[in-house]
């Protein structure tokens, strides 16, 4: 894939390992991401699929040791992230790319006021004066729906949803080009989740940002993203626009995820869980990582790693079964 100038982010063949005493954990095994301006990409997968490791690589925050970025390139807005010096990297984090973490309870400093936590980012990256930073911190709070006078309060004085709003205010304070949201609403109640997602959509448009939404919830992907990449055992197994992936699912794993979800308006549809468990990333099976759980697997799947190939338009999947003529997934029965 050529590096498109219009892309905010281009990741090519990213490989990340965690070298532990028990062995090498193959967390990310060759992931490509191309994210256009003002677009939102969903990264979907289960615990341990490598979603968060991919995100941390973009910020170069993979814990090292044991984490090692083995291969690949990450180009953020024309800049090569992986060859950058640490001091240069620090000037990029929070200014060009920000991240919202899953748990708002642990991502804020409990002994610093929320206003100061927002102002800190502004002073660091934009070199504004203390009073200017404090003023803008209050404006940011107002923007995420918190009264400005609460800037002098501490995180414990806020509820979970409010804390996540503060985290969003910090992330957006310097108007980044890319926002990475790692399960931003998983710790929140569903009505609060709806509020926070709505706020994020609104601010994304206001700031002309691109966004990567990491989640295990396909519903959130459908409602907030333009494109989606489904990750399994450190590889993208299916990628496409929301409509392509949701309406014309191609990969057996994606189908398995959909079949595991109860359908709200059809109680009769039985749940069809994916049998078994995700493979241990220390000992990935030979061939396709999904074959031990795949109802369509045949001999070739055990031998040969399928590559992501594009089918119609922007829709691509990594599955050998499509070499068989007329192959179709069974769907939900």
């Amino acid at each position: 894939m050529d590096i498109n100038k219009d892309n905010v982010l281009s990741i090519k063949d990213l490989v990340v390992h965690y070298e532990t005493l028990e062995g090498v954990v193959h967390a990310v095994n060759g992931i490509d991401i191309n994210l256009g301006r003002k677009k939102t990409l969903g990264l979907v997968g289960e615990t341990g699929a490598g979603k968060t490791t991919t995100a941390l690589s973009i910020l170069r925050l993979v814990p090292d040791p044991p984490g090692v970025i083995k291969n690949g390139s990450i180009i953020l807005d024309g800049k090569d992230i992986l060859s950058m010096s640490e001091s240069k990297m620090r000037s990029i984090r929070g200014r060009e790319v920000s991240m919202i973490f899953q748990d708002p309870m642990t991502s804020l400093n409990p002994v610093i006021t929320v206003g100061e936590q927002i102002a800190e980012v502004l002073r660091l990256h934009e070199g504004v004066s203390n009073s200017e930073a404090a003023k803008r911190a209050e404006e940011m709070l107002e923007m995420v729906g918190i009264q400005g006078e609460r800037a002098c309060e501490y995180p414990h004085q806020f509820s979970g949803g409010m804390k996540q709003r503060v985290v969003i205010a910090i992330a957006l304070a310097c108007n980044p080009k890319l926002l990475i949201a790692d399960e931003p609403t998983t710790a929140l109640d569903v009505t609060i989740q709806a509020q926070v997602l709505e706020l994020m959509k609104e601010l994304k448009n206001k700031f002309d940002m691109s966004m990567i939404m990491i989640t295990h919830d396909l519903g959130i992907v459908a409602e907030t993203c333009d494109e989606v990449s489904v990750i399994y055992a450190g590889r993208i197994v299916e990628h496409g626009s929301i409509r392509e992936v949701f309406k014309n699912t191609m990969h057996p794993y994606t189908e398995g995820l959909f079949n595991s979800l109860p359908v709200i308006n059809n109680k009769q549809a039985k749940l069809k869980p994916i049998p078994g468990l995700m493979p241990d990333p220390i000992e990935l099976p030979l061939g396709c990582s999904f074959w031990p759980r795949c109802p369509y697997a045949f001999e070739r799947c055990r031998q040969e790693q399928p590559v992501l190939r594009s089918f119609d338009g922007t829709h691509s999947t990594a599955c050998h079964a499509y070499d068989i003529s007329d192959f179709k997934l069974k769907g939900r029965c």
Partner: protein
Amino acid sequence: MPEELLRVENLKKYFNTKRGLLHAVDGITFSIEKGKTLGLVGESGCGKSTTGRLIMRLIEPTDGKIIFNGKDVIKANKNEMHMLRRDMQIIFQDPFSSLNPRKSIYELISEPLRWFNICKNKGEEKERIESLMETVGLARRLIGSYPHELDGGRRQRIGVARALALEPKFIVCDEPVSALDVSIQAQIINLLEKLQSERGITYLFITHDLSVVNYFSNDIAVMYLGMIVEKAPAVELFENPLHPYTKALLSAIPSIDVDQKRDRILLKGEISSPINPADQCRFAKRCNYAQDICLCGTPQLREVSPGHFLSCAVM
């Protein structure tokens, strides 16, 4: 006439806190028929888990009645309670903290069996444990494993096996799948469903996940700040929700249907404090339909159509 297994009447639990009386559960009434499932839904802090624990009498209620299989659970003495627990069991939310990390699967499952002297000898005990493991889908080779060696799905299966060990009539499932990935979630839900159809177990299914509860329950009760605001058969509740909170809750579920463009009802603000609540509708502050009448007295649950109960002064 369907047989009622559990009846809860005007159940209350208040906690004394420094800032005042916390109304965790504030006068709830419901019943569950034998072999059926009641889903209890609500957001964090609404009192749904407290309700589950009250029914198990893991905490003592402030007021109210719990009638299980004709017996008054609250009046039961220590011995009677011991015998009652054979018939009522609970599965907890977090399979990481609800199992003793120093006990093997064998020991964990044998605990309830030994407590009630179910097995005559070691051989019978082992047989029983192996058959329980098979029922919940745990491989026999794991019998000596410890919880930390297992993933969340398998740990939750141990929790299910422990609950099943005494062949109970009734199980409180307190968010049994919330800590699990979707593909594993579906495995556990299918298991619980299979056990119900084979053994006629009655469930109280406590969850915040509306799609799971709809799939699993016959009836659904929606809780808000310690009270039931709406209760109806599952199909009816989803097709014809009446309470503004239920409506908002349903519309807040992210949908995987890419064609369906819904009008989302966004609620104002957040759940208010359960400490010393005023005598008014507890949802009024966030409600889009609130009127003056909502601030005069707490609305009571009334039957608006057969089987459909609602507590709202406006709707």
